[in-house]
């Protein structure tokens, strides 16, 4: 697919029907419980495979760990979290690599497969499409508040569990229904990843602020300044591409908030959007929502207008 469209994963055609997907991701802990960190990191790494409409088949552990300061039991718990999540995805752990590091990090190198007819890139969104987001925003802010001791894990458990949730069901539903484009929402936040999709597709978007699913705690924590650095970087990067309208500051922070293991952002034709929303609901999801629509580009640039 080339590097121009900055798609979620690498695609390598194996034959007329099947393609190999490859992706990699790892990062330092964002929660306190090692097992949960393992789960979230694994779900996050496999998310890019799902965003392409594929399924993970093998995973290799990437580990950085301070063996002198943190016990082996901590590492064991991280890996157990990862292993169980990989198994849940129907994939197998086939090895990995670890290095000594002051700060622990964990993630996976993942290989997946996708039937070429089911392949979903980020470059085919069409004017008139509806944009669907499958998970609420705000994990970056919540992780910052957790790090600062302003909240504890128990208070944000729904968000933690959501981050540990595979995008598998969402991907299976979207490939069954048929969609135009998809990406997953991670480090660049909703608006950053939407912008990549819009640029790749040569279109713009209008987002309805009140329809975007967010963690309410994230909004109130943003009000008291518990905003990660990444949020400001994302905002700076997009300053010429987003019309904020009358969006209030704390919600703006949530829209730029870097996500970990966020949801799928799907561009689906208007005709199939209701079917997709209902099918996701039938499959057990209840946090997804139509957040806006795809509009023509403005002056050759993919602009996001928030209303």
């Amino acid at each position: 697919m080339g590097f121009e469209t900055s798609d979620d994963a690498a695609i390598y055609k194996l034959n007329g029907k099947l393609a190999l997907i490859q992706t990699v991701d790892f990062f330092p802990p964002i929660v306190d419980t090692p097992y949960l960190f393992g789960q979230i990191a694994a779900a996050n790494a496999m998310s890019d495979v799902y965003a392409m409409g594929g399924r993970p088949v093998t995973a290799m552990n990437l580990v950085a760990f301070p063996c002198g300061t943190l016990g082996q039991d901590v590492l064991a718990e991280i890996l157990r979290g990862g292993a169980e999540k990989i198994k849940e995805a129907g994939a197998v752990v086939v090895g990995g690599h670890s290095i000594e590091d002051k700060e622990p990090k964990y993630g996976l190198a993942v290989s997946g497969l996708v039937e070429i007819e089911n392949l979903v890139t980020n470059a085919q969104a069409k004017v008139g499409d509806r944009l669907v987001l499958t998970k609420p925003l705000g994990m970056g802010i919540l992780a910052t508040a957790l790090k600062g001791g302003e909240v504890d894990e128990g208070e944000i458990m729904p968000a933690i569990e959501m981050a540990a949730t595979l995008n598998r069901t969402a991907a299976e539903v979207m490939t069954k229904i048929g969609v135009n484009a998809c990406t997953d929402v991670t480090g660049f936040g909703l608006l950053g990843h939407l912008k990549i999709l819009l640029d790749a597709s040569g279109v713009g978007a209008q987002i309805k602020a009140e329809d975007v699913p967010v963690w309410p705690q994230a909004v109130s924590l943003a009000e008291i300044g518990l905003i990660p650095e990444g949020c400001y970087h994302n905002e700076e990067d997009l300053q010429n591409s987003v019309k904020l309208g009358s969006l209030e500051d704390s919600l703006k922070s949530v829209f730029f908030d870097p996500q970990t293991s966020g949801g799928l952002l799907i561009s689906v034709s208007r005709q199939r959007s209701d079917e997709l929303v209902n099918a996701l609901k039938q499959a057990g999801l209840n946090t997804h929502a139509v957040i806006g629509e795809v509009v023509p580009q403005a002056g050759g640039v993919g602009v996001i207008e928030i209303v």
Partner: protein
Amino acid sequence: MLLRLSRRGEKKVSEIVDGRGRPCPQPVIMTKKVLEKEPSKVKVLVDNQVACQNVTRLAEKMGYEVEITEKESEFSLYLSKGEKREREVLTSTSTVFLITSEVLGRGGDELGKVLSRAFFPTLTETASRPRSLIFINTGVRLVVEDSPVLDSLRSLVDLGVEILACGTCLDYFGLKDKVAVGTVSNMYDIVETLTTADKVISL
């Protein structure tokens, strides 16, 4: 941390939060802990733009005005409690007026009555209001039904001023059931109020 800065050119603050070298979100958390004690002026030091923006957002949310100065990639944020809080502080300064007579001053009762009728309305208009007014001896006549200054005293009560009238005095003049503003008080409360005041003005 309690540091008083008295160097020329420095603003006087009651607390300093040093968030320099602290990882995100420590500067915000440290500042929040301090602001929860509601100091009037705080100085926060941070060494990056993100911390500066986050602390600003927190402070404004908690009712503080923020002034930022930047010097060599270090930010000093001066946080001062907003206007509303300032007014509350003025009302609760512990100044107590002891009104010992229904007439103000000695030498001419007619003049004294005129002065009294001018004094209390004027008191409602000043920015610096007392904590309490204590009425004793013939002063208690000013808190009963036909008092010429009843409206002003009621306005002062609305503005948060406490009005105490000596019970013994009211009894003496047979006015206890005619009290129209304030609380009937006793010697213990009156003495307590006078001795805990920063300033007592006796009229």
